[in-house]
């Protein structure tokens, strides 16, 4: 509150006292004084006091003690005072639920007020008070307001349904508000329609499977009509909702597109982006030879360009989205390169995004201009921006072959500037250029070597060392250069150490006579003095290779390397498709699926683009790789993935260890591995999104796994996909899933407790449906009839999906088996333990209660197989605190059998690797409420006496982990 008092002193307090004075009260007895003022008889004084209370609330003071006094001011006909009291109520009602009830009467009365503004105010505020007792009273007024004659009240009531649903979903359903809300879509007032659409969309999101937003051509037509008439915000709600619709044929898509395109001229950028989203999505369903398709493509470019004249924050959002759009449909903006040129005064976040898009749009036609710009940028002030610009020059060289020479000479110019970070960045990209065009630009090596001393960043040092090693035969003093690096070997980062090792081995193979000493030195440094497992392992491979068969070593280490390809940072196609469906939203800004940053079940539905059904066209279209969701993702760097994959499988342990099923490819793998694999392992680092291949052993260690391999798998991000994929395919083919495990029935309700009714049962998941298998036994003397069952709220919203089917009366001593299908859309409440289920069974005699626990594997859904890349990203993203470690003992299973068994219970193996005699399985599970549970399982394969498995489980909701572990154990042991 310091500022407030200062302000008061500084200001001329002469003429007019204004509201800022309320911010100034800081005295000790403040609360007491306020209390007195609130209870004053004078209206003005009361109002002043409430204002002071609100000001204190704003700055974070706790004024909840004044609750009764403030609420007392509520019954007033002064609307301003009323609004202030409401504001207070919304803040504190939750902490004082008992007293909040005092306010109910006023609310209910206000909902009947003749003034529509007051009716709306009451219903709007009531919905914000999250107190159970109050929500009960809210139902009747809300029902009336939803049918109010005044549209202002109706539009407010529509949003209120969403509020109530957030507090108590079941109540909303029971009261039939959802149907009333659906009716409002046909309301005559466009704003009511828009708010109803917004509310329904939000509710539908938390019920992914419900058919709540039952969009059909009729409703779509209504929405499109309202679209022309409602406010800018309403248009956004409607467009965002439209984007979820699935047109039945291309004619319908076209007609929707035609009615949406006028929105592209709206002054509100969000309307424009949402319209772009609808068009991008529905375009997918249009035949490509249609004239309209071409027209539509042309119409999209100008509004996208116009977005760049908006305020910088919006430009940023627009640019992040354009980045996606150019990846999906490069043709739209291919002629618009100039608008992405960076302006001197652009904020840095706009500059960096523009640069990214420039590179994506670079082509032979515009490369000269682009290069001139990039060179200009490389002289700017912001270090990040300059680095990115330099890197961009290298990427242009790789992307547009004709420009390579110009790029190289530009880079050389930049090296001449001697600006430290420019030089280092230039060397890193020149290395990449060498890898794309080998034996073409070696003339520049001399210039590079001149700058050896100024390199202080590991990446640049590693790049330089790679160049020296690769072209050792042409550099006279290569041995001296490398030796100079070797002096401080232990102070170098792992990246540099690994590269130095490889480079010296290369040098040795090229000039064996002079460098024997050097190679021995580096091998001993790597294998004996280093405690980095990556380095050690690589050292041993070389050592063994060199000592057993130097000729083979030469073939392996100096083998011809695959060329790197141009686009190394494209977003993975399935993710790109999902992001296209989220244009304009945060997901498109972060370039992450909503599930990666939204908690709970909301937003975890994966959206997908749907291509034109039943047409072979997608295969002929120019953007084949990106169109159909079913197509295999193109390998980003074609070779590296496989190499890494093989590397991980290479078994370095004694020959007793087995590498299941990969034998034939292993030989090949080893060759490749040493020829190009390790080099590209280093060199590709700049190309992979994830960065650190092998660079962070600590991470591997922290996860409690074999450190040599783990960081590679995690850090490799998209590139390692191919390798892991191969593995998975191999293990996947071994056998059919064995089906989920069903525990034997146990007695849940003994006859003694239930007047002769005995219930035993178990749970099973069959064909994606959870079933509760019950045996009802009548141990009483009389016939039982009229069975019914109900569940209490539970952690995962389990609820009977149908009535308990006991059709015939149950005679004494008779047993009947029933299967009760369950749904997971019931009300949710966290139970202790988590998988506890409280059940009530009724028959003609009485109602009986019991509780049972269901194996949590019941709520593992069938589509719980995570994308490999998503898995890697998610695993990294979940904090290590959430990781739980478990051991499973006495298991006599190999990894394939375990994987099969687990799959039967919807625990899916994403990838498998073998490291040092251990099989590592990477597993994912998805719960019905959308929570993902990831696991890594380590199984000893080499030694039959080891029957222990180690399991580490990571989940955003760590409380689930022990139960998931129980399921693993249960499934594996049975």
């Amino acid at each position: 509150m310091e500022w407030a008092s200062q302000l008061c002193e500084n200001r001329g307090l002469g003429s007019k006292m204004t509201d800022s004075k309320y911010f100034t009260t800081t005295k000790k007895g403040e609360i007491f004084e306020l209390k007195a003022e609130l209870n004053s008889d004078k209206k003005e004084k009361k109002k002043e006091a409430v204002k002071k209370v609100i000001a204190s609330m704003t700055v974070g003071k706790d004024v909840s003690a004044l609750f009764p006094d403030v609420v007392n001011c509520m019954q007033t006909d002064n609307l301003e005072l009323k609004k202030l009291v409401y504001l207070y109520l919304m803040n504190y009602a939750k902490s004082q639920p008992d007293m909040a009830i005092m306010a109910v009467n006023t609310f209910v009365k206000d909902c009947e007020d003749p003034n529509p503004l007051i009716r709306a105010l009451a219903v709007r505020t009531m919905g914000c008070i999250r107190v159970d007792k109050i929500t009960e009273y809210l139902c009747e007024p809300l029902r009336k307001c939803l049918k109010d004659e005044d549209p202002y009240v109706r539009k407010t009531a529509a949003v209120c349904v969403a509020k109530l649903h957030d507090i108590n979903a079941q109540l909303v359903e029971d009261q039939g508000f959802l149907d009333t809300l659906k009716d409002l879509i046909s309301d005559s007032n466009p704003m009511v329609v828009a708010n109803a659409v917004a509310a329904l969309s939000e509710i539908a999101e938390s019920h992914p499977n419900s058919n709540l937003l039952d969009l059909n051509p009729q409703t779509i037509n209504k929405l499109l009509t309202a679209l022309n008439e409602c406010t800018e915000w309403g248009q956004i709600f409607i467009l965002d909702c439209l984007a979820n619709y699935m047109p039945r044929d291309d004619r319908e898509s076209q007609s929707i597109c035609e009615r949406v395109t006028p929105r592209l001229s709206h002054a509100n950028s969000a309307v424009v982006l949402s319209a772009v989203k609808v068009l991008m999505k529905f375009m997918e369903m249009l035949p490509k030879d249609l004239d309209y398709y071409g027209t539509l493509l042309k119409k999209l470019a100008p509004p996208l360009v116009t977005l760049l004249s908006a305020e910088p924050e919006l430009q940023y959002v627009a640019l992040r989205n354009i980045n996606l759009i150019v990846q999906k449909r490069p043709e739209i903006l291919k002629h618009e390169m100039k608008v992405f040129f960076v302006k001197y005064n652009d904020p840095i976040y706009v500059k960096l995004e523009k640069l990214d898009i420039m590179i994506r749009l670079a082509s032979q036609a515009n490369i000269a201009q682009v290069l001139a710009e990039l060179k200009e940028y490389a002289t700017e002030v912001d270090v990040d921006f300059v680095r990115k610009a330099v890197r961009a020059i290298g990427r242009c060289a790789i992307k547009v072959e004709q420009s390579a020479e110009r790029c190289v000479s530009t880079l050389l110019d930049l090296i001449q500037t001697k600006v430290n970070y420019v030089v280092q960045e230039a060397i890193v990209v020149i290395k990449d250029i060498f890898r794309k065009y080998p034996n073409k630009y070696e003339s520049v090596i001399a210039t590079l070597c001149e700058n050896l001393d100024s390199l202080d960043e590991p990446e640049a040092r590693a790049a330089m060392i790679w160049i020296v090693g690769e072209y050792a035969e042409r550099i006279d003093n290569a041995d001296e250069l490398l030796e100079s690096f070797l002096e401080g070997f232990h102070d170098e980062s792992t990246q540099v150490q690994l590269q130095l090792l490889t480079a010296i081995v290369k040098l040795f193979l090229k000039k064996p006579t002079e460098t024997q000493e050097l190679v021995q030195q580096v091998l001993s440094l790597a294998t004996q003095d280093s405690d980095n497992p990556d380095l050690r392992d690589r050292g041993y491979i070389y050592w063994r290779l060199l000592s057993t068969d130097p000729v083979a070593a030469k073939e392996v280490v100096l083998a011809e390397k695959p060329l790197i390809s141009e686009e190394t940072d494209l977003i993975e196609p399935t993710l790109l498709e999902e992001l296209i469906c989220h244009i304009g939203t945060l997901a498109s800004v972060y370039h992450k699926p909503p599930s990666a940053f939204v908690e709970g079940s909301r937003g975890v539905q994966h959206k997908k683009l749907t291509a034109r059904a039943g047409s072979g066209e997608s295969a002929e279209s120019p953007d084949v790789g990106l169109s159909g969701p079913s197509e295999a993702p193109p390998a980003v760097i074609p070779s590296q993935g496989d190499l890494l994959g093989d590397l991980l499988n290479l078994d370095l342990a004694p020959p007793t260890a087995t590498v299941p099923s990969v034998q034939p490819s292993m030989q090949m793998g080893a060759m490749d591995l040493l020829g190009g694999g390790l080099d590209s392992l280093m060199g590709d680092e700049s190309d992979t999104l994830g960065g650190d291949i092998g660079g962070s052993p600590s991470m591997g260690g922290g996860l409690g796994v074999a450190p040599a391999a783990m960081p590679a798998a995690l850090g490799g991000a998209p590139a390692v996909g191919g390798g892991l994929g191969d593995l998975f395919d191999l293990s996947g083919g071994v056998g059919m899933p064995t089906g989920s495990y069903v525990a034997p029935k146990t007695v849940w309700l003994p006859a003694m407790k239930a007047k002769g009714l005995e219930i035993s049962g178990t749970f099973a998941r069959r064909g994606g449906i959870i079933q509760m298998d019950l045996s009802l036994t009548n141990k009483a003397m009389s016939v039982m009839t009229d069975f019914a069952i109900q569940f209490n709220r539970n952690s995962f919203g389990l609820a009977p999906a149908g009535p308990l089917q006991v059709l015939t009366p149950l005679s004494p001593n008779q047993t009947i088996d029933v299967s009760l299908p369950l749904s997971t859309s019931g009300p949710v409440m966290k139970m202790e333990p988590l998988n506890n289920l409280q059940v009530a069974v009724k028959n003609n005699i009485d109602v009986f209660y019991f509780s049972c626990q269901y194996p949590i594997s019941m709520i593992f859904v069938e589509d719980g197989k995570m994308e490999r890349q998503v898995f890697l990203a998610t695993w990294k993203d979940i904090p290590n605190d959430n990781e739980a470690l478990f051991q499973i003992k006495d298991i006599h299973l190999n990894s394939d059998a375990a994987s099969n068994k687990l799959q039967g219970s919807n625990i899916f193996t994403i990838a498998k690797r073998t490291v040092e005699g251990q099989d590592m399985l990477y597993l994912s599970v998805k719960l019905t409420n959308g929570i993902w549970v990831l696991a890594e399982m380590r199984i000893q394969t080499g030694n039959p006496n080891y029957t222990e498995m180690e399991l580490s489980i990571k989940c955003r909701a760590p409380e689930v982990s022990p139960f998931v572990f129980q399921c693993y154990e249960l499934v594996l042991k049975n």
Partner: protein
Amino acid sequence: MIGGLFIYNHKGEVLISRVYRDDIGRNAVDAFRVNVIHARQQVRSPVTNIARTSFFHVKRSNIWLAAVTKQNVNAAMVFEFLYKMCDVMAAYFGKISEENIKNNFVLIYELLDEILDFGYPQNSETGALKTFITQQGIKGQHQTKEEQSQITSQVTGQIGWRREGIKYRRNELFLDVLESVNLLMSPQGQVLSAHVSGRVVMKSYLSGMPECKFGMNDKIVIDKQGKGGTTDDPGKSGKQSIAIDDCTFHQCVRLSKFDSERSISFIPPDGEYELMRYRTTKDIILPFRVIPLVREVGRTKLEVKVVIKSNFKPSLLAQKIEVRIPTPLNTSGVQVICMKGKAKYKASENAIVWKIKRMAGMKESQISAEIELLPTNDKKKWARPPISMNFEVPFAPSGLKVRYLKVFESKLNYSDHDVIKWVRYIGRSGIYETRC
């Protein structure tokens, strides 16, 4: 949707905090302060994710507005809303400053309650809002039933931006065509990029609910008419027409009609508003040409010569001309000679600022400067920022001409001829840079 909205002063103290969603706690207020406002380095993104909570922020002078959410909201909408919020506040109490916000905090809370419901933006047109939320407290206690329902129907209605029953004795309208011309030129005089972003701002003082139609020399419209043979001199008008790359309209314009017929028809808000924005890139009249010449004489001296040429009708006058020539950071002294206007070296801005009050078309002027440099051992080269220019000219550099603005109000007894109309063209420099 938006979970909460906070306003901070430059120190990071909260002036306004309104939470709309249960998933946003009070700690969010502090998280933003600590991680963004008090962060040491420059803001690297207008969207920040802190502990799975996303913060969107904009700054107005030294006031921070932040919207927070935990959901996958429409990001473009959130920013548009924040801008709108600033507009609404400015329309109520002028400049967005700490003092004004504190003085009007009750009003701001009231507005926030009205224009954002459960995080969903609602009608935020100041015209409509002012009918029932005022700085003198709320109207509405003593309104008649008709007045009340008029308010609600306007707030929710199809024409939310205008109220019924407006009356003026004199029906008058002002049209301003305001253009900013942007240029990036290479030292050799090659246009790297150039575009005009223009706005048509209208001030309308018209009675009733007038139906308006706006026409300009849009190439597509003119060509269409030319084909139909409706214009007398198709050759002439064809030449004068301009190609508009893209345009956006105020929400009063019927977009579907523009899409199908390319006609701009609307019922205008009362008072001042922006009717449309547009962008052109073809056949732009560049009012000035800047010819730089920079010569490095040894390591401690720079010689700069800059010539500007005006390129428009000699009868027109450009005003407020300012040329800004950047100087290196290690400048120790500058000698300037200019033919016209005044030039000064401003050490604090690292630039020579050359000002000319007026300059007619087809003229030329020149400045030359000698810059003394302190010797440095800084290896980094001077970045040579571009030479920038400011000016104002009384024509539209895009070539846009207003052809007509017709007003129809069938219910009241005034016709298009009775309306007094004013049109004005102003071309200003946007980012007008020449690299040197």
